[in-house]
């Protein structure tokens, strides 16, 4: 039994998006519509593939968890998909979602790089 | 499919004959290289125009001695990303002096059309209903090439810079 969501990149700007319950594409993985049964998964994929304004839709495996302080979270299974969902691990400033474990605690990138120069 | 030549869609007067097909009594035919190599005598005796189709792993050097008997050579693009036929066309035009039609078949698309023209193709099997004006625009967007190719009327930039009339 796996939980899956549909993801793609938006055509206009390439930003990572997830197909939501309302049929709209959201930038946030937590908005993603989760499919569990085989036919729901198939339907999710065919709906994603029919969408005109996204590029390269596909399904990813996720789990639903409730980490402390973050509420209900949809967490992609692989680290590659977590990087897609949360943003580059080296740029907390560009994070789509601050998931503490995602960033190296010693990565103080803001100090050396994004300090306004 | 349609046949594009000299910027216009025209009627194709050639018939492609597969290897297991019989020839009709009259009419211009395009045959495979294998068919040509095996049956060139009977094909010559028909006294009709002969075209030979080369797959892109077949070198045009195999027919250089026969070019006087051949009026058309068809080169194949199984995918537009497979660029072997560009080299074959240039060799036929520039090295072997082939004056007949060089026809592009397969995955022939608008954005590769100008490159094909420059390499010596002069006929194109294209999807029906293409936007002819758009195809022409694509050619005009590349009318100042840096390098000489098989289109002798297009001088490379360096020839224009130094007032040199001919590319070669």
């Amino acid at each position, binding site marked *: 039994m796996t939980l899956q969501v549909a993801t793609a990149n938006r055509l206009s*700007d390439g930003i990572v998006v997830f197909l939501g319950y309302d049929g709209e594409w959201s930038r946030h993985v937590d908005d993603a519509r989760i499919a569990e049964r085989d036919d729901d998964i198939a339907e999710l994929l065919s709906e994603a593939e029919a969408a005109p304004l996204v590029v390269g839709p596909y399904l990813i495996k996720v789990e639903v968890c409730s980490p402390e302080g973050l509420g209900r979270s949809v967490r992609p299974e692989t680290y590659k998909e977590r990087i897609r969902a949360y943003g580059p691990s080296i740029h907390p400033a560009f994070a789509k979602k601050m998931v503490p474990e995602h960033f190296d605690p010693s990565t103080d990138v803001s100090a050396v790089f994004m300090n306004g120069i | 499919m349609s046949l594009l030549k000299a910027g216009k869609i025209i009627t194709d007067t050639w018939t492609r004959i597969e290897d297991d097909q019989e020839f009709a009594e009259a009419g211009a035919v395009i045959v495979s290289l294998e068919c040509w190599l095996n049956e060139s005598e009977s094909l010559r005796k028909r006294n009709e125009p002969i075209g030979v189709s080369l797959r892109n792993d077949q070198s045009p050097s195999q027919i250089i001695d026969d070019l006087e008997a051949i009026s058309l050579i068809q080169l194949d693009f199984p995918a537009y990303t497979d660029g072997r036929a560009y080299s074959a066309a240039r060799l036929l035009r520039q090295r072997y002096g082939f004056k007949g039609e060089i026809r592009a078949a397969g995955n022939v698309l608008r954005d590769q059309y100008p490159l094909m023209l420059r390499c010596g193709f002069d006929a194109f099997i294209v999807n029906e209903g293409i936007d002819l004006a758009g195809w022409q625009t694509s050619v005009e967007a590349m009318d100042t090439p840096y390098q000489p190719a098989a289109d002798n009327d297009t001088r490379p930039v360096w020839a224009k810079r130094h007032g040199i009339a001919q590319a070669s």
Partner: protein
Amino acid sequence: MYVYDKFDNSLVSDRVEQFREQVGRRLSGELTEDEFKPIRLMNGLYLQLHAYMLRVAIPYGLLSSPQMRKLAEVARTYDRGYAHFTTRQNIQFNWPRLEDTPDILEELSSVEMHAIQTSGNCIRNITADQFAGVDAEELDDSRVWAELIRQWSSLHPEFTFLPRKFKIAVTGSPHDRTAVKFHDIGLILKHDEDGNLGFEVLVGGGLGRTPMIGRTVREFLPQQYLLSYLEAILRVYNQLGRRDNKYKARIKILVHETGIDALREMVEEEWSHVKEEGVDLPFAEVDRVRSHFTDPTYDVLPDHDHSFAVKQFEDPMFGRWVRANLAPHKMPGYVIANVSLKPIGGAPGDVTAAQMEAVADLADKYSLGEIRVAHEQNLVLADVKMSDAYSLWKKLDEVQLGTPNLGLISDIIACPGLDYCALANARSIPVAQRLQRRFADFSRQFDIGELTLNISGCINACGHHHAGHIGILGVDRRGEEYYQLTLGGSADENASIGKIVGPAFSNAEIVDAVETVIDTYLSIRANGEAFIDTYRRTGEEPFKIALFGEKQNVAA
């Protein structure tokens, strides 16, 4: 540097208009993604992990200060305020919108820049020596030839759909800084016995899945035949290079499978015809291009500068920067200044818009308005007066570009890795950052001495890991990031391919593993011996034992 004439300008602006129209067809739905993808790639536009990525060509790594300012403006207006210099002397923007790319390309065309052929299976940006024109040992200026090849290869009708991408490097110096032996074609300028200028031509070098060192296909090619010879090689490759397997499609595999002697025969046979077919340039055109690369008017200066010497003593960080980052210039009183884009803990090769503007201003003030990009992802100000070096360094340091680490362990080459790249298996940048912090102490870095540490996030090897004295390759092992260590690679004139040592290390272990390698080197090096020399003397044994112990070593 080279300045466009009306023909160059019209070619680039035609291309912008063509791409604007193509983007319009894509956004309207007339073109499918499958049809559009090769078109956008031909214009340097990738779709990466988080967004589109636009790779802009910096021909042979040479930029004027207005071009650098334009890149900064693009970063600020259309991106997120920064950009990334690549291992091929190009620059990448990580967050452009598809809709904006025609405008970006139009902006770039206003300063004679473009993104043509920065992707796709065509002839890519030509690599040249970042010290070209200012290196005392140089035989000839590689930029002249790189520019001629750039023009010849731009929109080449026959070679736009090759079996695979194709990279050409030119070097004019006996000390190779271009990784010439790791290019599909490497051109080494040389003189024949009679003093005529020409090239030794190498073919079949490359990194990636199957790293290979280029083989000599021709010992001496007279300069006037350069383009016909290239055309002959490319034609043989276009016809015979493998197209059944993308990982076996580079010319190195053709060289390997055919044999260099058989390939040479084919190339020479082809060339015997091509050289009669009008491909080669008239001397007037070579002279025209060469006239763009003549020496500037240098001041007549003494060999030494008193304040330069004193400042090194007074300010030890400056002293370090002089030792690591400055290189000798062919003119007395001048130096070549390398600007490190590897601050401790930064992303290798990344620069902010403000830093780009600062470099442009400093280039105007101190280095004749030109900037070069090195494939090590650093910048070069090539014409700095010794007497200006201290002021230059102070100003660089103010914008965190004064790191004194060129050629040292923290001068890490790293691809963007999985933080950006859709192909990557593991992250590169965080590993580079952790290594830089581990070795942050500059006394320790100088003690370790000359060392290249290269990191790639996948087997495609954009981070040149096989060519690093120490190489790190990110791999995915059952959903976890692991890192394979290689030792003994080198990208210079004594090119060698690094050897894998032992099993891969976890993300948590890799920094310790590198430190173990370094400590081992420090304990066994002979006096004054650089890491690579120690490795070549001892082989991998002592390093393997230190990393894995005697037992595992025997078992492996």
